[in-house]
């Protein structure tokens, strides 16, 4: 239980949430998503911490921190990376049509 990690994670999550709700630039929306993702992953990793634990790399002596969250985080990082890559590809293609990355202009589909 590292309080600092949790607090940081919450702050980063809120910054990410603010970014996606308020910023009009599409790149910033994508960055906000990445920030939110990182915050959640930080929470996961820090949840496995055991005070006085050593990295779970064999051979080790004493108690190791929980390796399960590390596995989840790695998987989730990969997933997040592919999502962000896809989003950026969409932005590039969309820019060719709309000539802008302003979210308030990209509203052709409505009603």
């Amino acid at each position, binding site marked *: 239980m590292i309080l600092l990690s949790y607090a940081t994670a919450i702050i980063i999550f809120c910054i990410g949430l603010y970014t*996606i*709700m308020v910023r009009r630039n599409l790149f910033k*929306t994508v960055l906000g998503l990445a920030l939110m993702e990182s915050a959640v992953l930080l929470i996961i990793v820090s949840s496995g911490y055991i005070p006085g634990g050593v990295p779970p790399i064999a051979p080790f002596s004493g108690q190791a921190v929980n390796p399960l969250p590390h596995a989840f985080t790695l998987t989730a990082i990969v997933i997040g990376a592919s999502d962000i890559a896809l989003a950026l590809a969409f932005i590039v293609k969309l820019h060719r049509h709309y000539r802008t990355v302003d*979210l308030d202009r990209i*509203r*052709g589909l*409505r*009603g």
Partner: protein
Amino acid sequence: MMFDTAHELFRIDTFSMVMSALVVFMTVAVSIYSPGYCEERTTFRRAVFYGAPWLFCLFSCLGVVSGSWFMFTISVELSSLALFFIILLQDPKAARLYIFSQLLGAGFLLTGTALLGALTGATAIGPVPGDILWLFLTGLGFKAAFPVLHFWLPQVHGKAPTPASALLSGFAVKIGVFGIARLVSPDTGTVLPFLGSVMAIYGVGQALLQHDAKRLLAYHTVSQLGYIVTALGAGTSLGIAAGFFHTVAHALFKGLLFLSVGTLEKVYGTKDLDHLGGAARELPLTFSLFLVGALAISGFPGFSGYASKAMVKAALYEIPNPLWYWALQAAGVGTVISFCKVGYFAFIRERDPGLRPHREHMPGGRKDLMRNTGMALPAAATLTLGIFPGFFAGLGGLESNSLFGMKDLLPAAATFALGISLFWILRKWFGSGKHEIPDIDTLISKGSRLSAPVFSILQSMNCGLLRFYIAAVVAAGLALMFLM
């Protein structure tokens, strides 16, 4: 097992047999009438015109013999669908109004049935507990034209093709009444007579102001349904039998009246009483058949309407509150006035010279023969039931002679005298232009303008702005957190 609720498949008793016989009879009469009326070009449309009444007959028979509310609702929905197709041939807007109102009614009935199954474990057709009664009454009220829920009836019955109107007014609304008859219990004794009397008086009042003949007949349907509902509200077996007798009688004479107005429509090309006239000379057979129907609905002794109204009033003697009896009497006077009006303006006085009768529809032609034969069947039945009401009187435990006693003949005579004299006094006023009071169906078109804000709110929510969408997601998340 999970979705089964206890019920028998069929419940066949005297009333079911009577209603089935009635619908078959009406459909036969309408099918004989139809070749004289139908002017559809393509085979497909003609097939719908002739075939749909029989589909309606099939589903209505299934409805009246069904043993559970669920089967009843399904059969009623399917019969409405059959009629929807015929009305679609002539007036799509009225057809849409019809099917929407019927689907809404069926929705209420389904909800009621589901709650009945959840509360009692059985959905057999019969009286229901008091707290879900409103669902059933609303659902059946859409079909049986209860006061506010009747908004579809004048427009649909007025604009449908005449054979469909005859079936609609003749039988389709009766299925709703049949459902109410199955529901009758001490709980309904308070609300049904009130609703019935309001329907009776309101229907006659609106009918007096109409100049479209079919819309006038449609309002009379509302009024006569009021008689039936009031009789059912008495709650006794005499009341139920009286309701059934009037149902059968009304189906026959209202069908007859609609068919005769349909003849006028085909011969002169209009249903407007302001322009019609003089038909008694040119269509004597039609006029005499019309007269049978008009005398029956007004309650002239010797016709079925008199016997059934006498029985209804006999049932009402048992209710302590005399208000309903006098309401029905007043409606009776109004009925006499109204049919004097139709008879006079459509048949007796001089016609608008601009109207010429169509050659192929004149007497002596094949079409006229089909129409008159089709009308003769209900007319004969009306006369038979009027002179020999024994079967129905027996159902209610009365002797048939008691219906012809002084206490019934005297009010009937008084009603006639009052009605004819009032008509003669007001004759000029009726002929002088349009005096319509708007009914609820005009509110619908206004109501659709009122609902525009809802649509514009919804439409502005789907604005295309991604940031708005994300904000909506976050708001939903916060609401969820608060809810839990």
